[in-house]
């Protein structure tokens, strides 16, 4: 742990009725880092995000973000501190238009009084325009988000995440169900976001992870099995055993 770290997870343990979803998980993230997290099903990848965002309270351990403990804080407070999350299946507001979805994310302060008494600021409108261009949704501004294709929904949610201007972006399976081309574009987008932002990407798709060209943490049975570049982990014996699989005997 040092000052450059944005996030430290220290000995996080989460148990669901006896089942250890996370078992003494330790993980540190530097500012501006892009980190991929992989692991077999049930390794605790999503629980790991749930702990950071406040959805699940760990039975044990500490989450330190920008020097503050996140454990016990409410979800919206954690979000306001600068933790943004994209969900596994796209979770956008289908009954609202693309623009309204983005308005929800870029609006600050997020208080009822501000929302009802003031109209949206010009700089926020510009930000929405910028985001819509980045994710190629400029023609769909006034379409209901529910009418978008799956890929467009994924991108809209990523745009919403970026619009929130979080210091830490947690991205859960951003390329599930996307075409190869869209996958590549998403990888480039995430790479361009890191540096200024700290990005954690969870995914199964090895090609996608490789393209991210980042450090990779491998989770297994609720704990970090191995960390390093893609080359290192692909050679790691433990990783091969539990995740990548040996050539069949």
């Amino acid at each position: 742990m040092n000052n450059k770290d944005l996030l430290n997870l220290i000995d996080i343990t989460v148990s669901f009725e006896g089942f250890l979803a996370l078992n003494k998980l330790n993980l540190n993230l530097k500012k501006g880092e892009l980190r991929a997290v992989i692991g077999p099903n049930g390794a605790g990848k999503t629980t790991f995000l749930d702990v950071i965002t406040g959805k699940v309270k760990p039975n044990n351990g500490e989450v330190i973000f920008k020097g503050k403990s996140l454990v016990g804080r409410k979800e919206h407070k954690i979000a306001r501190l600068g933790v943004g999350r994209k969900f596994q299946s796209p979770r956008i507001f289908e009954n609202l238009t693309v623009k309204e979805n983005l308005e929800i994310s870029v609006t600050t302060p997020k208080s009822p009084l501000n929302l009802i008494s003031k109209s949206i600021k010009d700089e926020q409108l510009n930000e929405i325009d910028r985001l819509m261009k980045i994710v190629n949704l400029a023609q769909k501004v006034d379409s209901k988000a529910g009418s978008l294709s799956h890929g467009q929904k994924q991108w809209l949610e990523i745009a919403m995440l970026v619009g929130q201007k979080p210091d830490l972006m947690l991205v859960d399976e951003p390329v599930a169900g996307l075409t190869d081309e869209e996958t590549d574009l998403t990888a480039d987008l995430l790479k361009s976001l890191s540096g200024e932002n700290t990005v954690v990407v969870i995914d199964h798709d090895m090609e996608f992870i490789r393209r991210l060209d980042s450090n990779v943490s491998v989770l297994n049975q609720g704990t970090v099995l191995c960390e390093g570049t893609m080359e290192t982990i692909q050679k790691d014996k433990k990783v091969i055993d539990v995740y990548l699989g040996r050539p069949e005997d």
Partner: protein
Amino acid sequence: MSLSKIKFDKKIVLSFWIILIALTIAAPTILPVFRLNLLGRYLSLSIVALGVDLIWGYTGLLSLGQGIFFALGGYCAAMYLQITSSSEFPNNIPEFFALYGVEKLPFFWEPFRSPIFTFFAIWIIPALVAGLIGFLVFRNRIKGVYFSILTQASLLVFFNFFNGQQKLINGTNGLKTDVTQIFGQMVGSESMQRIFFWITAILVIAAWFFAKWVVKGRFGNILIGIRDDEPRIRFTGYNPVIFKTIIFSIAGGLAGISGALYTVQSGIVSPQFMTVPFSIEMVIWVAVGGRGTLLGAILGAVFINYAKSLVSEALPASWMFIQGGLFILVVTALPEGVLGWIQGDGPRNLLQRFGLKRKIETYPSLEVNNKEGNNE
């Protein structure tokens, strides 16, 4: 798609306005006082229905306890009228107190000697009670069917409490208003009832504008967001508890205004306003009219109640079956309610079914865009 929809919506809204204004202006002259009074009552019910639409249609909170706030507003208005008209009774307090040997006005009724206080109390007290109940419930993340059960349980608590308080509010008997006086006139008199009708009609329109203002723009979008995916709203940095408390409190305030207007036009407020079926009926009006349309809530409340009185006159005791049938019909065939069905693709689908309209061969958006292109 959106263009033609907006035009269509505007037509509906415009025709609604013309009909409403024409009816409101014509009603006091063409309707006998008895009918006018009924219409006034049903219009006042449409204000509580607007509140139900705000919390249920927009925010997804199905409250079965709006009767609490409705009755609170009614009691505030009725007690003010009773107190101001009590000068000839013993101790200068409302007559019923003497029956139970009460000689002094209970302290919490003291401020109700003031018309200004009462004017504010009618909506602020129900709004505060709703805000308090709402905050406690929402803070504990009680939602869905548990929220509905809890509101119904609260309703029963209030109902039983009010029934038992003879010395404070005349218990089961309630408070009569028709023989009280305001501005030197009997509240139940024809001229006063006409005035109340006007006030109600104006307040329905005001409440409708207010509700529209609440749901338009970003605040309303957050309400819809809470309805559709509350955790997502949390993770975006909004606190849904505050938003839900505010909207529940607004619905409570609207219910209070509605209850006060209903009370002065029906001549009495009693714990009967807090029976379980009545609060469920409020939900039915909105479901039938159309959830999340606001206008549907108003139309639902007025038309269902008018139908109720007409049917009950013709075929006593059959109304409950018709109302039940109506509810089942809406749930199964028109889940968006009548207005939601009209605003959606309902009429087009119906015409297609009878072969009166060509089927859509491409995506709806393409089809409509082409048409617009041709028109231009």
